[in-house]
């Protein structure tokens, strides 16, 4: 088995286990897609995928950022900004159903969120500020900016506007959010695996200084990666807003940055940078989406999802820690002299 398949094995097994639990709880209909009366693909699992599309977009951007040893905490706020700009532009216009207007609103929102992402990248690459600090600024101020755009209101887009198609519509019976997320996944996967870009990313994440000396424009790559992450977050915000028909600056995409980081980590991309698995991230997102439904399907109240997520974060974080694995496996080791040294001594390294 290749190392890549090995990496993906655990997330896939977890996802399958969750699906089995759901099938036991609600019957085999859970996994089988059905075609609704309006010609759209439906069914519980398709809905999970549709609802997870914004999270997948953000998690993909986050995967690339984490591959460069960075992190982007501002994606939740950027999500809110993207949603706010598009919705506000549309409701300010006299005719909300005009296709040109919707196109302008979407483009403008994406340009702004890309600029915001690039700004994060410049802070990290050129000012040398730690990623967690640089993006914290927008995490704090971003929702304020979104409020500024909407004037503290929640703009509601008419149901007749083509904008809502972005979240609710279907193309060839498959919901549009799934199309967008799948296209983004394919595009990023091809871009990073079929060109040298992916290798350059891993190189920058492994050692930015050595990459620079090797002739890689690491600063440009860092800015590009944050730009893509901002763009993904903006697109996610648009889909989320189109689905709801409104943009809530305070609660839209709340804690989505944490969910995205969680999905990336579940998918096997370590937070220390250097290696990344886009497909693993996609499976991580599916796990989180399915987990939320599983909680309701097995008869627990929806409040359990925070607790369940906490348990997942805890278990994944511990399993990824070599010290923890050594500690837990110690009683099963055959030769006592090969046991791991005491953790305190290990910290010296």
């Amino acid at each position, binding site marked *: 088995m290749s190392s890549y398949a090995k990496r993906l094995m655990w997330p896939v097994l977890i996802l399958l286990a969750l699906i089995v639990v759901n099938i036991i709880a609600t019957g085999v209909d859970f996994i089988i897609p059905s075609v609704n009366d309006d010609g759209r693909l439906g069914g519980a699992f398709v809905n999970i995928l549709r609802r997870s599309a914004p999270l997948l977009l953000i998690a993909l951007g986050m995967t690339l950022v984490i591959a460069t040893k960075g992190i982007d905490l501002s994606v939740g706020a950027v999500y809110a900004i993207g949603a706010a700009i598009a919705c506000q532009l549309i409701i300010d216009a006299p005719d909300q159903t005009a296709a040109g207007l919707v196109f302008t609103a979407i483009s403008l929102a994406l340009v702004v969120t890309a600029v915001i992402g690039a700004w994060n990248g410049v802070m990290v690459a050129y000012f040398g500020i730690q990623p967690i600090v640089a993006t*914290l600024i927008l995490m*704090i101020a971003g929702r304020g900016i979104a409020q500024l755009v909407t004037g503290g209101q929640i703009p509601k887009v008419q149901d007749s506007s083509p904008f809502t198609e972005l979240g609710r519509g279907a193309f060839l019976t498959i919901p549009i959010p799934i199309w967008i997320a799948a296209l983004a996944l394919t595009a990023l996967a091809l871009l990073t695996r079929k060109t040298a870009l992916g290798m350059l990313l891993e190189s920058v994440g492994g050692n930015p200084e050595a990459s620079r000396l090797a002739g890689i424009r690491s600063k440009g790559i860092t800015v590009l990666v944050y730009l893509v992450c901002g763009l993904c977050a903006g697109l996610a915000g648009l889909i989320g807003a189109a689905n709801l028909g409104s943009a809530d600056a305070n609660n839209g995409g709340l804690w989505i940055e944490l969910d995205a980081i969680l999905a990336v980590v579940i998918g096997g991309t370590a937070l220390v940078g250097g290696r990344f698995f886009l497909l693993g991230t996609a499976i991580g997102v599916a796990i989180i989406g399915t987990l939320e439904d599983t909680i309701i399907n097995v008869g627990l109240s929806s*409040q359990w999802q925070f*607790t369940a997520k906490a*348990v997942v974060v805890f278990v994944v974080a*511990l399993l990824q820690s070599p010290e923890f694995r050594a500690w837990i496996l110690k009683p099963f080791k055959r030769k006592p002299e090969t046991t791991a040294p005491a*953790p305190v001594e290990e910290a010296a390294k």
Partner: protein
Amino acid sequence: MTAQTLTERPSRSKLFDGLTRYIPIGATVALLIALYLGGLANYRNFDSPQVVAKLFIDNAPLLVIAVGMTFVILSGGIDLSVGSVMAFSTMACAWLTVDAGVSAPLALVLVLAFGTAWGLLIGAVIHYFHVQPFIATLVGLFLFRGLTLQISDTDVSMREVGFFQWGMTHVDFGKIRDGGFWLPYLSFVAFAVVIIAFVVLHYTRFGRGVYAVGGSESSALLMGLPVARTKIGVYAISGFCAALAGVLAAFATKSANPLANVGAELDAIAAVVIGGTLLTGGAGFVLGTVAGVMVWGMLNTLIAFQGNLSSWWARIVMGVLLLAFILLQRILARSGEKRRT
């Protein structure tokens, strides 16, 4: 990794030599004075001492969690769980006293002990299993928000519990009409926390250890400092402070809201950084954090006095200030680097 360490370490130690280390905190104090003078010039009644006193009434819980956060950030870590732990503590106080019928002082002790124990646990996970602080405390953020919602997803009132009247009992310093002011007991609790934190950080072995671990963990270990005790200790302090802040919030509002203090950890981190503490650890002051919290409070006060501005302006301004202070720290670090070579 090694190359990076070699180029970054000296800049930091140089940055906080001599008078340079007082530049960020000096800027914060100057900003605070400027905000106050701006308020004086523009609004009537801004000169009442109660305006300043109110900073320490409204922001007493934030001050307490920011002090705990200062310890964690100084040691080079971060604690994202404080907002949720705080909300959970308030809710636990309400649940223990109103529903479970536990006597209020006992409930208080239980909550504080619980916060500390949580901090110890998460500190141990961070230290012994090398889980990143960001991820480990993320567990707390989700877990305690979830548990708070488990207890109740609506507000719980503690008005009937006599004990919780204690916190807002006034101490009058002269009549308000004659230029006096009043402070509730809970503000004094916050002051006590600040004073104890100041003494612990600057005059005890543990406090110096926090700076040493934040400056360079491996150096601290080679010097024979108790790194494990220090790292676990700071998270225990932060957990205790978050629980205490939850208790203070229970005193202040006499009710528990399951969605209270969402994002309080961000306010606390912002206050700590604006107060001149380096987010990478190793340099900063508790009193700077007090100034940072006062800046946050002063911004909100100014917005309240202006009357026609929304509260989200405070967040935007706070973000801009955060940016300015982070850039200032970078510039100081760069100039320190140049002086060295």
